[in-house]
């Protein structure tokens, strides 16, 4: 249901602008992650370089969103759902900026891996990538559509991503012992797994902020009840 307009048209415009910047930042972050992972899987240094360069624009958007958010708080003193949306937008931008940093980190590691023969253990990263990206997309979807149930469902999925990372790490450590000549490569893959696990953490944070914005419920730091 579309909420009725504010009597102050400038208030609606400011909120719409803030929301649009958040969506733009989410799109750029998704693109950056996509480029970094393609740079890894397709061994494409150009894609890696582009992903690293993307970070500057995303950083500037974070600053703009924070500035616009504070401006709205100052000028309009929002309450209730308006206040929750502004606060959540500012928190989201922080999580998106950190996700973009992870994309940059992945791209840097991928460039190093690209200079060495491909490792079959790259396959360990594939399910982690899929899980992290799906969590990210769904968390943004939950925010955009104010879908509380979708937001709640993302939290247990992070446990699955953590487990995939643990399995991958154990395997890579085993391979390091078996094939020490490729130690650097296995280490870089472990770090990439860690960066993807952090992407999942940030997606979880975004989902929690989406639930708060929509329903004024703080679902952070609750006991884990089971992964899906």
């Amino acid at each position, binding site marked *: 249901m579309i*909420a*009725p*307009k*504010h*009597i*102050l048209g400038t*208030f609606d415009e400011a909120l719409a602008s803030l929301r649009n910047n958040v969506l733009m930042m989410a799109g750029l972050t998704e693109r950056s992650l996509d480029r970094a992972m393609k740079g890894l899987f397709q061994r494409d240094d150009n894609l890696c370089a582009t992903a690293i360069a993307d970070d500057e624009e995303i950083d500037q958007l974070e600053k703009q969103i924070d500035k616009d958010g504070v401006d709205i708080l100052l000028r*309009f*003193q*929002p*309450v*209730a*759902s*308006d*206040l*929750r949306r502004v606060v959540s937008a500012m928190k989201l931008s922080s999580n998106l900026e950190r996700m973009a940093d992870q994309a940059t980190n992945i791209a840097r590691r991928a460039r190093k891996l690209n200079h060495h023969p491909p490792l079959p253990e790259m396959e360990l990263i594939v399910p982690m990538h899929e899980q992290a990206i799906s969590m990210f997309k769904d968390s943004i979807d939950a925010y955009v559509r104010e879908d509380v149930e979708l937001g709640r469902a993302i939290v247990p999925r992070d446990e699955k991503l953590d487990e995939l990372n643990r399995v991958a790490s154990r395997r890579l450590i085993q391979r390091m012992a078996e094939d020490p000549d490729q130690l650097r490569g296995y280490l870089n893959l472990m770090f990439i797994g860690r960066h993807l696990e952090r992407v999942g953490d940030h997606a979880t944070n975004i989902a929690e902020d989406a639930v708060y914005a929509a329903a*004024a419920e703080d679902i952070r730091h609750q006991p884990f009840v089971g992964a899906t």
Partner: protein
Amino acid sequence: MVSLLKMPEILPRELPRQSDPAAPEEATKTMMIDVCDLDFNYGEHRVLHDVSLQMQSRAVTAFIGPSGCGKTTLLRCINRMNDLIENAHITGGAIHLDGTDINAPDLDVVDLRRRVGMVFQKSNPFPKSIYENISYGLRIAGVTKRSRIDEAVEKSLRAAALWDEVKDRLEKNALGLSGGQQQRLCIARALAVEPEVVLMDEPCSALDPIATAKIEELIHQLRTQYTIVIVTHNMQQAGRVSDYTGFFYLGRLIEFGSTTKIFTNPGQKQTEDYITGRFG
């Protein structure tokens, strides 16, 4: 660099309690004013419909709502100021103050208005000295001993955060004070007769921001000793000063609850639309 863990004076001794937006800050509050199924008319025109709410003692309750919603009418019911208006009368329900029906036939209305003081939108000091503004109510109540009056004047002016500004000119005419000082004088005047409840009808609407801030700070200090009910058009003020907020519309109480809940997650869409500026 010294570890923070070795600096106990910096670290809190206990983790802060997670606040519950639905519960009042202190669990020991009791109900002071009970409005039950109240209907009120000006002649044939019904202006309050079936209003029920309970105001806690030693807490601040704010009434908000668009103009004409009945919030000032309800406020004036609590000390029966509406009795002074021709054809204005309660047509249903009751108001109890600390368990006593304030509309009982044998109730002493003068004593009610001593127990339930009122501060108005436009400050209205008497055209007398500052001292006489405070002492008038005491003399009417039968206090004659000069030392006792002196003590009460100083006490109430201190309670209203005005003593330091006027202690050297108590004999001066109160109309010479600034708007903010006059309003604090009116509060002191109400406090002098030792009320239990203080009603405030938009007490800051005619004041500049600094005077407003001083009144709000005063309300914050008084809330530990008095039950305060405030009508305000300024929602940010309601958010700052009150513990509980009631939203009124067209003579009905739409929603009542802790101020934190009303302003962060109201239960009624009408409340949300009003406080976010989507209607009103």
